[in-house]
């Protein structure tokens, strides 16, 4: 047993704590120090935490940022979101593979560099982008990729890749990142400068917790993560649930491809978010909060810790907050480790508890029994950022913005084929056409509203409104021009869901793979009419029987593209006259055999490659 492994594991367990809910932190630390969590480390962790080593392996193998094989000192993770693909990430990958002499997914022999792909890192407005360890590199192209490789070969220090700092707090000494905020429209609620810091919290503390919840309920604030559950109702449930403790979780695990507005909020408005959490804690009766920050945003971690420390200093966190006797509340940050499903609130809780990031069985809902069995409120970053404003300016003011069922504003992350990608704060109810005009994409052919789990719409639907009652979105708006292939987009999104499915339930684990295979068949030009029925049929089963939101929404790209782009599917469906199934390719099926036997097919080679075989000319 290696001494180093043993020392690192023991030290980490000792310092972080030997309880199961510390497991993810322990694993992240070991990964960073040893560049992997191998069998030996898992064995030791199991012993330290008194759990089976294969249980530890179950957790390690769940997260993309943990590995059992040693990774390089510097890991370059290229974002392979569809937006980055269209922006040229593959050319960037080629350059890097060439420079380092390895393939994607490999590590250089000297153990210095690893190259891999990763799903959306929340930088679609500055694509193609990559994570180099924790450092974000944006707007890559072939030239800058080559420079990056040279720089890394020389210094092996990702921090040295940041030449020009981004706008706003991106230039803060605790962030020092080249990321740009790209806030292109400041709406009435979040990005206006009229709000007074901590006014909402101070006002809330003059009311009873029940009155605070009432105010939120009256504002009709709905969750901004995508599902749109009424926030006040969630708080009310948690308050009404019995428990020695209650928890406030902030979901900062935005992983929906094309969403990056929470990243901007975390950079520019962390105080507003923490203030919102504190108000929630007061309303619900909680003394403990956790921000679950996605691993891709590690570069913001230190900054957020500093903001928390400052708040503690100012008496905005800790004991007797703002002088309110008996109101104690503090917040810690839990880092994620690369898993989209952990943005689902019950998976997020599983993850914080040191389990595989599987969604939990509901009921009980988190507000009844959440983190470690205690009533837990999980709110999105953006939802929480609205709370102080509502308390400050009143529920009526908030409810007067937007539509009747979708009150207030929404931050939209717009990316893809448009002139001005970035973050737009708009009132709910804006039509897609109005938005496209705003972002400079009037020629758009395909708009993905709400990311892969939302809807792919075409021009005939551009008059529809972005609102919970029409086209809901957690913030992702991806625009594609006429030159893009609908099927390629659909295929990518299915691939994404397959990669990110936790695999707990049958329909999501298997159904999506089968759906993707059928899309591939159609892309190969082998589609038949039956395939359309198959896709619809199987999609319905996946939707009806899946256990959580991932499975329930995963077939959306297929169903919405079938609805809005039917011609795309019908145009490629061909008829065959040899009686063979479209999906069966005799040429491909015989290829290997011809190679091994070193002879031609006596049945099928006469027509090989010349014209399709018809039954008439078969022996």
């Amino acid at each position, binding site marked *: 047993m290696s001494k180093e492994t043993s020392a690192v594991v023991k030290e980490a367990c000792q310092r972080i704590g030997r309880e199961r809910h510390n497991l993810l932190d322990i694993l992240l630390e070991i990964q960073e120090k040893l560049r992997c969590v191998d069998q030996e480390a898992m064995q030791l962790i199991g012993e330290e935490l008194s*759990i*089976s080593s*294969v249980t530890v392996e179950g957790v390690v193998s769940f997260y993309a940022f943990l590995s059992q094989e040693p990774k390089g000192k510097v890991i370059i993770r290229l974002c392979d979101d569809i937006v980055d693909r269209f922006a040229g990430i593959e050319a960037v990958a080629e350059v890097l593979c060439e420079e380092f002499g390895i393939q994607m997914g490999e590590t250089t022999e000297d153990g210095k560099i690893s190259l891999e792909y990763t799903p959306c890192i929340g930088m679609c407005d500055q694509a193609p982008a990559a994570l180099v360890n924790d450092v974000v590199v944006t707007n890559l192209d072939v030239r800058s990729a080559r420079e990056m490789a040279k720089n890394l070969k020389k210094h092996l220090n990702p921090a040295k890749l940041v030449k020009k700092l981004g706008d706003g707090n991106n230039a803060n000494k605790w962030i020092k990142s080249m990321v740009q905020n790209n806030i292109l429209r400041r709406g009435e609620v979040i990005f206006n400068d009229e709000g007074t810091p901590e006014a909402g919290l101070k006002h809330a503390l003059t009311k009873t917790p029940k009155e605070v919840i009432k105010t939120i309920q009256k504002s009709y604030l709905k969750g901004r993560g995508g599902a749109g559950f009424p926030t006040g109702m969630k708080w009310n449930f948690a308050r009404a649930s019995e428990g020695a403790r209650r928890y406030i979780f902030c979901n900062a695990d935005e992983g929906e491809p094309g969403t990056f507005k929470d990243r901007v909020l975390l950079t520019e408005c962390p105080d507003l978010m923490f203030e919102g959490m504190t108000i929630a804690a007061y309303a619900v009766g909680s003394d403990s909060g956790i921000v679950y920050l996605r691993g891709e945003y590690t570069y913001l971690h230190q900054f957020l810790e500093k903001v928390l420390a400052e708040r503690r200093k100012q008496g905005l966190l800790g004991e007797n907050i703002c002088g309110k006797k008996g109101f104690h509340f503090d917040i810690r940050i839990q880092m994620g480790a690369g898993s989209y499903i952990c943005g689902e609130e019950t998976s997020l809780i599983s993850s914080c508890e040191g389990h595989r990031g599987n969604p939990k069985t509901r009921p009980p809902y988190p507000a009844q029994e959440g983190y470690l069995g205690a009533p837990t409120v999980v709110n999105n970053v953006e939802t929480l950022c609205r709370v102080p404003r509502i308390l400050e300016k009143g529920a009526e003011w908030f409810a007067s913005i937007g539509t009747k069922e979708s009150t207030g504003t929404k931050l939209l992350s717009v990316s893809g084929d448009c002139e001005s990608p970035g973050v737009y704060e708009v009132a709910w109810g804006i039509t897609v056409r109005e938005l496209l005009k705003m972002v400079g994409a009037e020629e758009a052919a395909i708009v993905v509203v709400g990311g892969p789990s939302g809807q792919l719409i075409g021009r005939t639907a551009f008059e529809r409104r972005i609102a919970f009652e029409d086209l809901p979105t957690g913030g992702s708006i991806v625009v594609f021009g006429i030159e893009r292939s609908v099927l390629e987009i659909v295929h990518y999104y299915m691939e994404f869901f397959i*990669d990110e499915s936790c*695999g*707990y339930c049958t329909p999501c684990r298997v159904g999506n793979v089968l759906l993707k295979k059928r899309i591939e068949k159609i892309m190969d030009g082998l589609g038949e009419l039956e395939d359309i029925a198959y896709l619809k049929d*199987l999609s319905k*089963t996946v939707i009806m*029987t899946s256990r959580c939101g991932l499975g329930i929404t995963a077939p959306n790209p297929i169903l919405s593209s079938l609805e809005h782009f039917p011609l795309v599917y019908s145009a490629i469906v061909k008829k065959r006259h040899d009686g063979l199934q479209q999906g069966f390719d005799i040429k491909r099926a015989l290829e290997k055999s011809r190679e091994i036997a070193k002879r031609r097919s006596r049945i099928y080679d006469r027509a090989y490659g010349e014209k399709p075989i018809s039954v008439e000319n078969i022996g």
Partner: protein
Amino acid sequence: MLGEVNFEIDGVKVQGWTGQTIMEAADEAGIYIPRLCDTEDLRPAGSCRVCTVKVNGKPAAACTQPISEGIVVENNTKEMNKYRVDLVEMLFSEGNHLCPVCEASGDCELQAMGYRLGMTYYHHPDLNPNRTIDASHPDILLDTNRCIFCGRCIRASRDLDGKGIFSYVGRGINKRIKARAERLVDTDADLNDKVFAYDLCPVGCIIRKREGFKKPIGTRYYDHKPIGSDIQS
């Protein structure tokens, strides 16, 4: 607190008790709801989704969904059984389920579910998994290509035996069942463990050695009566 709860399954009035799941109440009432991952003695997992029913029009897993007063449950309907056939077909195509060469044939719950639902073949391409076969243990063989991810062995080894021999590793379609050591013989797995003694594996993934094909065709568990006959009144 035990309170009476009255509700309805396929138009039949059922009485259950507070805290029961739909599955538990249905079992007591002699109404069979098809299932693969759920079994007696283990905490329900809700992972196979074969027990999906509609509760007041919305889908839910009967094995984890608590009953409540007045709910209307749709179970044995054309629509729900269609979803079930789809799920069973998915499991058949995901794993390596060649019934003629499998020791579990005749006693296999996946196969029996196919029989019960009238499945004659499956529409999907085989995914041909390439997973571990572990014959290291003197009494037990693991062919994980046949695993249907019911998680019974994980739950039983952890909760009934207190050993925690098995866990899932990986995620999504790459999820695998794995024993604590590379070879099962290097764990403390024993044929007397409840996970093995109760024959909890619904398929032919966990096999007792030297017992394969002992029972002649016609005497096996599901040869004459459909799965669920013991519950259905």
